[in-house]
């Protein structure tokens, strides 16, 4: 059982002696502290995770320390000592949130600890019921709290046992490269530097503002939107941050890879729905799951807002034609199983609509963002290199960088029943003619027309006379954008 925001507000308000505001939010910050609650008879029942701001805030608020204490601790990055002890006491008192009045089950605090690397991701990777809250104590900075229903699982089942010794490295340490340039995969969690995130913050701020002005035009009302935070997240972290009670719009941007996500809380959906129907944006009654009729009303407005994304990103990828592809609104976040290894750039947004602040998250697959990141990184690198070594230096440097080329074969649309029934010896007729050229591409760039040939036991392609080869600008190839200072 996950306590409601009202219950959390009431308990913390009583403890701190002030009006505490706990509202549904998106978990936009990494949890810093993790508390586990258990029933002595049954095992773990719940977890509570707080970001470092909330740890400091709650640690100060319970003892009535001035806000300076919090600010100093956060500035110095030292949230320990009494603040930590006090925070632990707050968590100790929060056990009451997880007790069910009906069965009188005793719930006690099992442990409070700093979140170890990967621990939170492991926990939320079990797809457990969870809620994320923004907790504001008057006079202190607001922080974030996640509450997770662990469903009587053990520490071992949840992968939360403390490591007594450092884990053996699963992969050998890569040798230090002696080359100045190397391909860089921005999908890896370490791929986005803080400097790059700062650059992205500016561009995504433009996305947020343009989305707001588009919506304002449709609603004929004031709408403001700003970027709260940008984070590079994996699948589990994305799912955990989105939490429950959300609508998720997933959409494609034709010309870019992967599916984009825009997750927004139900209260924002209700507000938007009310305004679309001519109301003030203050819906009657609590947020509820939208009906099919609600969704049909929301969808055109949402699609209009989503149209902003390709138009704002277009200048970064002039070689492609970006347009809004298919989109759909789901009542919960579902990611395909093959997205497990994907990562996203999650942009946490604060939208002021009808005088009320709402939160949303725009998640862009890193695969889609890669050309934009590369352009930003390499633009800086190119300027630096050409300044130091001359105008041709960058061009010469990238010529040695490998890039993947692939051959695009003809395809054919086949009913699922036919696909499922394929047997040895069956023949599929592709939508292409024998002898027609195949297209050799590097990324999205057409390199040459080719034809298949056999060389010994190897399948090869031979460049045809009608090839465009030789007219391709090396600097236009994705290889140019894959280089990064080693």
């Amino acid at each position, binding site marked *: 059982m996950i306590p409601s925001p009202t219950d959390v507000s009431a*308990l913390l308000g*009583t*403890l701190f*002696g002030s009006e505490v505001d706990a509202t549904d939010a998106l978990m936009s910050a990494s949890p810093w502290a993790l508390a586990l609650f258990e029933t002595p008879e049954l095992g773990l029942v719940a977890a509570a995770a707080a970001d470092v701001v909330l740890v400091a805030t709650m*640690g100060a608020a*319970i*003892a*009535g320390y001035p806000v300076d204490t919090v600010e100093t601790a956060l500035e110095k990055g030292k949230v320990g000592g*009494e603040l930590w*002890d*006090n925070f*632990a*006491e707050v968590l*100790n*008192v929060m*056990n*009451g949130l997880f*007790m069910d009045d009906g069965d*009188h*089950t*005793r719930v*006690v*605090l099992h442990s409070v600890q700093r979140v170890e690397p990967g621990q939170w991701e492991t926990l939320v990777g079990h797809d457990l019921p969870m809620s994320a809250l923004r907790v504001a104590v008057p006079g202190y900075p607001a922080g974030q709290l996640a509450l997770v229903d662990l469903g009587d699982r053990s520490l071992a089942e949840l992968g939360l046992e403390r490591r007594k010794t450092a884990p053996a490295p699963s992969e050998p340490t890569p040798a230090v490269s002696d080359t100045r340039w190397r391909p860089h995969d921005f999908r890896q969690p370490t791929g986005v530097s803080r400097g790059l995130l700062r650059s992205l913050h500016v561009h995504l701020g433009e996305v947020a503002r343009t989305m707001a002005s588009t919506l304002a035009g449709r609603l004929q009302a004031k709408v403001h939107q700003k970027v709260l935070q940008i984070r590079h997240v994996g699948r589990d972290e994305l799912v955990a941050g989105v939490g429950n009670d959300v609508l998720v719009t997933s959409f494609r941007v034709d010309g870019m890879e992967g599916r984009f996500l825009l997750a927004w809380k139900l209260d924002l959906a209700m507000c938007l729905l009310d305004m679309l129907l001519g109301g003030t944006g203050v819906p009657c009654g609590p947020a509820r799951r939208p009906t099919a009729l609600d969704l049909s009303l929301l969808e055109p407005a949402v699609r209009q807002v989503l149209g902003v994304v390709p138009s704002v990103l277009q200048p970064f990828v002039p070689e492609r034609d970006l347009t809004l592809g298919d989109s759909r609104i789901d009542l919960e976040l579902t990611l395909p199983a093959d997205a497990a290894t994907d990562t996203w750039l999650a942009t946490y947004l604060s939208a002021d609509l009808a005088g009320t602040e709402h939160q949303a998250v725009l998640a862009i697959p890193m695969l889609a963002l890669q050309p934009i990141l590369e352009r930003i990184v390499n633009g800086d690198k190119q300027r630096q290199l050409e300044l130091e070594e001359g105008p041709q230096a960058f061009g010469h440097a990238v010529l040695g960088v490998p890039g993947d080329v692939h051959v695009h074969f003809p395809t054919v649309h086949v009913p699922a029943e036919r696909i499922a029934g394929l047997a040895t010896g069956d023949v599929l007729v592709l939508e292409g003619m024998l002898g027609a050229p195949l297209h050799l591409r590097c990324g999205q760039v057409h390199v040459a027309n080719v034809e298949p040939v056999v060389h010994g036991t190897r399948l090869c392609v031979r460049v045809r006379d009608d090839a465009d080869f030789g007219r391709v600008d090396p600097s236009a190839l994705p290889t140019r954008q894959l280089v990064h200072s080693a």
Partner: protein
Amino acid sequence: MRVLIVDDSKAMRMIVARELRQAGFADLVITEAASGPEAIDAVGEFSPELILSDWNMPGMSGLELLQALSAKGFPGVFGFITTEASAEMRSAAEGAGSRFFITKPFTTDVLRDVLAGVVAVGS
């Protein structure tokens, strides 16, 4: 009134002391102890009329503290302020001689109402 607050959390001892004062109890003299053994020492030195104790504390629990003080013939009023709320715990506390059982978090009104029945309340 001499009051001994026993809790391993400094913040919680501060809260209990603050709420006691806000509840309007007259002539309060408050002493704190962070553990059961510290509390036993404080009882010998301070002779409190009222002890407000946490239940879960490292080393010696609040219940064990109550039992130890009862064995020594503690004449004052002993009660729990704790996160424990189960019927079994309340029953065990009453059986050991606890006069009241307040669940954290609590309000000033709750503290005043509960204590009004067992100690004198000021103006």
